[in-house]
């Protein structure tokens, strides 16, 4: 097949595109936006909403940009008076029965119907008939609510469930003006990707109970991040509200949405990740504590780090580090794992290095992986062995134990954990979440949650993805990378080396120099 491009002109802009490209995609390549509601790049075009009409020179009727392939020499106009008039007409029909609930509609602010009305509509409604009443609160899935008045029957939801998840729980029922989206015989939408319907629906017809009525979209700051809940590393948006002065507890993350990355997750994320984020904000530890003779003393970072360094330094100096044990986890970022390896494996020469990670779940064969940790691949690439914790090995002849992360608590039953940890004199916990481990240790250092950190993660396919902090650290917490660097400085090992590593980006660059994989 020859790859000779098709030369076309869109709004006086010449573009060359491949054969088979639709007008809408060609316009996108030319940097022009053609309004569309039912078209979605992941699905076969449906051509039901008719908002994408364009004028093609030499053709008597307007054509659908989403479903018409380009032909060589085509001259297309996307903004001619005829086109604009047609779009206005289409909008007027789409809104003929639309409730215009905008003030209480969760889509308002990012609703395509609102946007296009602003751009092409601005008509006075000419319909005299009363708007048709339809059901407004229909539970179509555990977390999804359908509003039939707001639905514009674009069938994106139907096509998602038949083309992507292939579960086909929704369909268009009845005919003509009575058409409506519905589940079959009340069997709910039940798959691990149902949350995507909320992102997909161009209007506010499908809302999820997690976000419904909680806030308005324009209050939210949108940040790009990586989902930490499995090793796939799906790209996400995190929508965060900075909170109201003087009303405590109002700063929070309101929702997670899929971010397009065709290499990793396409345009979707699973419900496990989407609705798993409240667990990241719950039970956070935010104070630096020293349990001195059973009494909790609140400490500063400087004090506690120098205290710890005092305990480790003599052992390092006498090269007698065999009684130090550390437990890491692969929720730590690339940078943190690298520093961890540098300090504990290379500089201190520890033998007892273990990993405590969340228990694997089951994958679903699409995005969700059984491995419920985001960065195991990085640890392997660095040459760290993911030894699971064996309590006997951990406590035998151990004097100092440093635990990173809360996961150890879920892996062993409390009585044996307490039994074995009691044999160790000094125990340090660096953890973002409260887990029950606090009661067995002497020093508690609060770590920032993964959404409060900047750094990078390596997904299961070896893709290194950078992300930056979504919100400020909780309480006194600090990210592990900064704790590790400060600790190294206090220990006075390799001082020149660690004092250069001031930011995650610098650490990543340094990693690239030392480990070819991260280049």
């Amino acid at each position: 097949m020859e790859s000779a491009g098709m030369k076309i002109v869109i709004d006086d802009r010449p573009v060359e595109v491949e054969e088979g490209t639709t007008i809408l995609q060609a316009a996108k390549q030319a940097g022009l936006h053609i309004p569309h509601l039912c078209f979605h790049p992941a699905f076969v075009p449906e051509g039901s909403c008719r908002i994408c009409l364009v004028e093609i020179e030499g053709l008597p009727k307007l054509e659908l940009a989403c479903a018409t392939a380009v032909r060589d020499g085509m001259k297309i106009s996307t903004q001619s008076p005829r086109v604009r008039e047609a779009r206005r007409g289409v909008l007027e029909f789409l809104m003929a029965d639309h409730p215009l609930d905008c003030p209480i509609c969760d889509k308002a602010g990012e609703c395509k119907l609102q946007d296009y009305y602003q751009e092409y509509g601005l008509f006075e409604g000419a319909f005299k008939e009363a708007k048709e009443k339809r059901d407004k609160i229909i539970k179509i899935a555990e977390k999804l609510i359908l509003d039939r008045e707001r639905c514009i029957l674009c069938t994106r939801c139907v096509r998602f469930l038949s083309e992507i998840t292939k579960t086909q729980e929704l369909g268009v029922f009845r005919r003509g003006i009575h058409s409506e989206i519905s589940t079959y015989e009340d069997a709910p939408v039940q798959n691990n990707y149902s949350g995507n319907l909320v992102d997909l629906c161009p209007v506010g017809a499908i809302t999820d109970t997690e976000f419904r009525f909680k806030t308005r979209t324009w209050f939210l700051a949108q940040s790009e991040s990586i989902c930490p809940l499995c090793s796939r590393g799906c790209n996400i948006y995190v929508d965060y509200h900075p909170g109201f002065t003087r009303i405590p507890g109002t700063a929070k993350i309101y929702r997670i949405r899929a971010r397009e990355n065709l290499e990793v997750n396409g345009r979707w994320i699973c419900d496990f990740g989407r609705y798993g984020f409240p667990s990241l904000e719950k039970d956070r530890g935010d104070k630096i504590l020293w349990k001195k003779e059973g009494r909790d003393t609140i400490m500063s970072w400087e004090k506690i780090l120098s205290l710890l360094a005092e305990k480790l330094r003599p052992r390092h100096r006498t090269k007698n580090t065999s009684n130090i044990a550390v437990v890491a986890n692969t929720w730590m970022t690339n940078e943190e794992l690298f520093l961890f390896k540098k300090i504990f494996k290379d500089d201190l020469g520890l033998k007892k290095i273990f990993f405590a990670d969340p228990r694997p779940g089951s994958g679903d064969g699409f995005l969700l992986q059984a491995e419920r940790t985001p960065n195991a691949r990085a640890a392997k690439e660095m040459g760290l062995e993911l030894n699971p914790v064996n309590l006997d090995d951990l406590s035998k002849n151990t004097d100092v134990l440093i635990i990173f992360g809360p996961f150890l608590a879920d892996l062993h039953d409390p009585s044996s954990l307490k039994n074995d940890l009691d044999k160790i004199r000094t125990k340090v916990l660096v953890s973002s979440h409260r887990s029950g481990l606090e009661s067995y240790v002497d020093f508690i250092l609060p770590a920032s949650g993964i959404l409060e950190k900047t750094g990078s993660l390596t997904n299961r396919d070896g893709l290194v993805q950078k992300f930056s902090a979504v919100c400020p650290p909780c309480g006194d917490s600090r990210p592990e990378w900064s704790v590790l660097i400060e600790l190294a400085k206090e220990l006075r090992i390799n001082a020149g080396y660690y004092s250069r590593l001031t930011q995650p980006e610098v650490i990543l660059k340094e990693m690239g120099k030392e480990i070819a994989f991260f280049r």
Partner: protein
Amino acid sequence: MIRSLGYFWELIKGSLITARHFVVNMWFHTLKLFGIKTKRRGAVTIQYPEQKKALASRHRSLQRLLKRQDLKPRCVSCMLCVTVCPSECIYVEAAEDPDPDIQKYPSTFIIDLSRCCFCGFCVEACPEDAIRMDTGKIDLAQSTRQDLIYDLDKLLK
């Protein structure tokens, strides 16, 4: 030395201004007493707070939330007042109303009066005419900040 002299000079200047106002106003009041009509009139002050002036019909005073016939708040928690408020002093939490025609009602509605600048934008923004600033209450000073936080109960009264 010169600076402290300047201070006294400003004091004298200020007293002279006060004296000028007193004399001018007394002059016009005296003329009025004798029935002499002049274009300008002497200034009149009222003894607030013992004496109060009637408020203009378009004044803005303490906010109130209006009720429906069934005594539930009219507010549908659209948070447009929260959006428009330049002082960021309104906080609304919504809940699901069992009535599908209402859908959204405020489970929390807080106005932090210590920040409110009485611009009245919240009233303008409300699509439901659920909030008004026509209570006529303008003496709102309190001695603690907490007393200036008006919640749903206080605003519905």
